[in-house]
């Protein structure tokens, strides 16, 4: 399927990452947004509020983030594509409903324009401190997808992708932006609608009596109906059977949770996305994501100018994590350097996958600005000492 041309502002724009995210959502077919505006994500909902009347969308400024994150799920079961938009403090409030979306397999998008925390922290300054929260923030075992853009152009492209992934796999998808990317203004090229691929959820249209809301085939992804179509459905956060009815048995729990995990795991090779540059033959690989992938570039160039063999692997999709590729690389390189705008989060994933096969060096930063390239350069050089 292609995008509905009504929502697509084809052309070259000079806009910030927040606005590009809004345009990506509209192009992807999002027609319901609920949010409680918070810096530095406010511009996303401002643009949505301005644009939605022209594309038939509904934006509601809710009383808080808890309400926002559940309103979107109601809209999805009513047949819409929906998202909510926030930053750290609001993201914390949304955790309960991220779990609900995972449990009820409600396709929706959560945009988190990260600022420095904890708590209200530095409202107007960047960080990447919510990366583990995106993966593990709600209780219990579940899987989600998290995407990290590094430019306004990617805020457009990857928001479209976020909706597509959420519709295909029926999971909440997190767009993990940051203040720098959100407020940075650059050229954003929006293609014509027929060049924008749009995926929609699988829809059940068989006989009413044989419908099982959470029955799946080998792909482990159930088909959806929407409220009002006349099907009997029961959607609950309680452990449920294939009909959706609560089932308080150990076997139902085992079966359901296993499937919620496996439906992402078996498709991980299709979901994982990273970009590599000069990784083959490198002694050091810098693993970065989001804005940090851009601050790493001058450091990598300076290291190469000193004769070091440095490759760059940028995570575009951070969750699910590209375990296979990092394991493989760890067996080939001397060291992996992980700069991130937090005190060390994704570095633990890298260490887990490297499993002692190479040196792993963290380049932490508490947030508030971006890394200075010289700090990343120093870590690259340090990582080779003693190997």
């Amino acid at each position, binding site marked *: 399927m292609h995008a509905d041309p009504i929502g697509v502002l084809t052309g*070259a*724009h*000079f806009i910030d990452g927040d606005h590009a995210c809004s345009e990506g959502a509209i192009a992807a077919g999002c027609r319901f947004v609920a949010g409680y505006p918070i810096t*530095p994500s406010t511009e996303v909902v401002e643009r949505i509020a301005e644009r939605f009347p022209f594309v038939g969308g509904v934006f509601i400024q809710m009383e808080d983030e808890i309400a926002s994150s559940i309103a979107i799920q109601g809209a999805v079961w009513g047949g819409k594509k929906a998202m909510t938009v926030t930053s750290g403090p609001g993201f914390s409030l949304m955790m309960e409903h991220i779990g609900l979306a995972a449990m009820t397999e409600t396709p929706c998008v959560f945009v988190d324009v990260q600022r420095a925390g904890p708590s209200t922290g530095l409202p*107007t300054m960047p960080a990447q401190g919510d990366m583990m929260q995106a993966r593990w923030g709600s209780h219990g075992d579940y899987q989600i997808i998290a995407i990290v853009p590094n430019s306004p152009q990617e805020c457009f492209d990857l928001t479209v992708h976020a909706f597509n992934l959420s519709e295909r796999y029926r999971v909440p998808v997190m767009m993990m932006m940051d*203040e*720098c990317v959100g*407020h*940075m*203004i*650059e*050229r954003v090229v929006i293609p014509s609608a027929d060049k924008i691929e749009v995926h929609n959820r699988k829809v059940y249209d068989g006989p009413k009596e044989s419908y099982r809301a959470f029955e799946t085939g080998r792909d482990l992804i159930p088909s959806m109906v929407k409220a009002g179509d006349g099907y009997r459905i029961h959607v609950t956060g309680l452990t449920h059977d294939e009909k959706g009815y609560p089932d308080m048995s150990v076997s139902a729990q085992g079966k359901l949770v296993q499937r919620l995990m496996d439906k992402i795991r078996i498709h991980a090779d299709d979901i994982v996305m990273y970009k590599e540059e000069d990784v083959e033959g490198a002694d050091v690989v810098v693993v970065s994501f989001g*804005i940090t992938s*851009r*601050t790493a*570039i*001058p450091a990598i160039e300076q290291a190469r100018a000193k004769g070091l063999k440095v490759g760059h692997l940028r995570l575009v999709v951070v969750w699910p994590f590209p375990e296979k590729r990092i394991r493989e690389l760890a067996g080939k390189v001397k060291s992996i350097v992980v700069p991130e705008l937090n005190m060390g989060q994704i570095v633990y994933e890298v260490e887990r996958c490297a499993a002692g096969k190479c040196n792993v060096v963290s380049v932490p930063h508490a947030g508030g*600005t*971006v890394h200075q*390239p010289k700090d990343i350069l120093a870590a690259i050089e340090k990582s080779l000492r003693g190997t």
Partner: protein
Amino acid sequence: MPRNEIKIGGFGGQGVILSGYILGRAASIYDSKYATMIQAFGPEARGSACSAQLIISDEPISYPYIVAPNVMVLMSQEAYSKFTPELAPGGILLTEEDLVVTHNLRADVRHFSIPATRIAEELGKRLVLNIVMLGFATALTNLVGRDAARNAVKVSVPKGTEELNFAAFEKGYEYGLQLLKKEPEKILA
């Protein structure tokens, strides 16, 4: 063209952010260059110090913040005191003549000034001082071409004010060209 770092400073309400935006839009949309703009984001309100940071380059821009600006456009005394120490050696400084007294200016700085507020007032709207400054900067640097800047002005100002803004741009541009004729050795970014 290598990486150019530009800082535009003034007080809130002068159109500082808009002039940076138009310059970036001219470069990245109409001149096929790369541009990254970062706004100094804080509790800026009308009358307080504010700035726009812009990078313009022929190459993709990786590091998004400016480190040592080589072009500065300043429209207030506060911005002058606060920002000029950051100016790169040999950098270009463009100031609003009546709003900025350039005391203790470093010898390596290439300085030009324009009475942009007076020019804007003569055109009937003091508000367009930022566009006068933009025309001035376009003439005195190689950041963007005249046509690209004019195209970007056209699509960035409120509908119905295009002619006024074009006039402001041209006044600033012409003033800049005249200064260049007098001091061609000071040329260019």
